[in-house]
């Protein structure tokens, strides 16, 4: 036995007891790892496989003891389900604006808060983050009041300038803007992550660029954005997954009815209603797997395109 690993304990002992110790260490490693392994098996791996199996049955919680295999019936149902089309359309239409917003607004705010000319940066950081810890139920109640047609402050502000504000949450045209506005209170988390990564960009890069005559906007484009692109990428992936999981805010606003006129019947609300209102676990599982596959394809696509625009300063590959 030659290569004794000095980083591991027990190198002072003889080689035979060293290997015994290594075995014991391995055993303890598994003991400490076991909560995750058990949890992963029972709450992730087995459920994923089971939900695939369920999607080929007619499992309904109204008759939990009568389960039959029905082949592809649930998958054929996908094409006949009018709400699915609506929910996908709503989700995509909403995401078209909400996804860029979920990156650009925290980024813009982080750039502002990172400015060396800002006084009391810490205070601003804390207060911009704070609404993130406000429970969604409170945030929705507050914003619903802010956006109410006659007494809400937003419409009163518009009236102050002589305008007439819309009936935000009950209007087909204004419900998405209302949801974007409510979503603003969640930007604190990503803002903070971006701020920290902005602070991690080496200052020498900026100094070198300034010597070469770069203007502030060039600095952002050619130094800041490439240097923080891994963080942008990571948050973009999470935002896409989050878009398909979008539930709490629209559900609280319309009690899951999708009001107004099915504009808030987002994918996850449709899934929830299928599985928990109509108790159709089989078709719910089918929807879940459709979601899983869509999310998977989009994530793979993002990783593919990410190769062209995500820049890893350390040269490492992948996340």
């Amino acid at each position: 036995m030659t290569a004794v690993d000095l980083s591991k304990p027990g190198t002072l002992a003889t080689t035979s007891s060293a290997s015994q110790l290594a075995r014991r260490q391995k055993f303890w490693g598994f003991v400490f790892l076991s909560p995750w392994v058990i949890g992963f098996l029972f709450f992730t791996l087995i459920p994923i496989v089971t939900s695939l199996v369920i999607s080929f049955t007619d499992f309904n919680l109204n008759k939990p003891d009568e389960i039959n295999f029905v082949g592809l019936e649930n998958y054929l149902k996908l094409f006949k389900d009018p709400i699915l089309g609506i929910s996908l359309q709503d989700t995509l239409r909403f995401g078209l604006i909400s996804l860029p917003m979920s990156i650009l607004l925290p980024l813009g705010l982080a750039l502002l808060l990172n400015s060396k000319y800002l006084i009391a940066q810490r205070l601003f950081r804390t207060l911009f983050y704070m609404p993130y810890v406000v429970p969604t139920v409170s945030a929705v109640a507050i914003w619903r009041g802010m956006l109410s047609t006659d007494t809400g402050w937003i419409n009163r502000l518009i009236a102050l300038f002589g305008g007439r504000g819309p009936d935000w949450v009950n209007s087909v045209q204004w419900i998405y803007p209302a949801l974007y506005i409510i979503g603003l209170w969640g930007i604190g988390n990503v803002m903070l992550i971006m701020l920290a990564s902005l602070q991690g960009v080496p200052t020498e890069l900026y100094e070198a660029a300034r010597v070469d005559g770069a203007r502030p906007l060039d600095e952002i484009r050619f130094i800041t954005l490439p240097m923080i692109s891994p963080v942008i990428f990571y948050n973009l992936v999470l935002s896409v997954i989050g878009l398909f999981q979008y539930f709490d805010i629209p559900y609280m606003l319309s009690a899951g009815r999708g009001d107004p006129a099915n504009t808030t019947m987002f994918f996850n609300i449709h899934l929830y209603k299928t599985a928990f209102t109509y108790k159709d676990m089989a078709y719910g599982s089918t929807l879940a797997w459709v979601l899983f596959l869509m999310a998977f394809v989009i994530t793979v696509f993002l990783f593919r395109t990410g190769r062209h625009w995500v820049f890893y300063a350390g040269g490492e590959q992948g996340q």
Partner: protein
Amino acid sequence: MTAYGAFDSKTFRSFRLKTLITLLATFLLVTFLMPFSYMVVTSLKDKQQIIEGAQGSVLPLDTVTFNYQGKDYNVYNVPTSAGTRQLALIRKGQTESRFVDPAHPAADPVVWQGSWRTLEPVTVLNPRLTNFPEAWQRVQFPLLFFNTLMIAVFGMIGTLLSSICVAYAFTRFPIPGKNLIFMILIGTIILPRQVTLIPTFAFFTRIGWTGTWLPLIVPHFFSNAYNVFLLRQYFLTLPRELDEAAMIDGASPFRILRSVIIPQSYPVIIAVGLFHFVYAWNNYFEPLIYLIGKPNLVPLSVGIQIFNYQFGSEPQLIQATALLGMSLPVIIFFFAQRFFMQGIVVTGVEK
């Protein structure tokens, strides 16, 4: 030595930029936080004030009335030759109105020329603090608060115990395939939870756990990718010499974890605990599906939402309840913001 003027203009430029940037940030922040003022102000109004508020003030103002010969009359600011007087309007007229002076009701009524509609009513600030006890009682705040606290605290204990052990395994033990296992762990972060939801729900229903807190607590005893990642990053920075010394002294791995690793890791342990606490406090979806039909067991998120559906016509109670519901997480955040900020930075930037 540079010229005096050049130095001056540079300081001036920097001063101007500082003012400009700080003002911009302040303006954005005030706009961003304005809804909280709306919440506080509305929670102090009564229903009548809210309805009137659509035209008038944002503050909880009452119009002042004066009881004259058994009837209530509104008091107005009336411009007279002797300055503005506060008088009760007893007879309205297009061109001429009669007022009585509340200070001297026995005196002759004052006759005033002009349209009474142009007059400003006299108002007085009258915050309805009683909205809070009313909301507290109607939403059954103590019950919901207790439920939320139990779910949050037990889940927090679970995620701390398990995540600390798992992070310890990843940082201090030779596990075959450790890197692959770690990749899978991190991969679960971007797994959409719906794909595991239905079988898990069916399983909990089968063993009779739906309608109890157990599905909201027990899964947290099996660790969580974010928390393991955060703890692992911290444990990696701890020097190994101390645990090696303890091991040579014959301490068991559990003993080393308890006496060497954990005492050095309080900041990150607090951060993980707080993240879970806030998560559990805000969690809506899981209590919604697991505690359906159990109004005595639901946490604040679900309980307040049910209340809001029922009391849609009482905005002042809804805003008072919103304030009650957010108070604890926000207070904790302000006291422990240092731990929050550091924790978020680690999970977000280092992955």
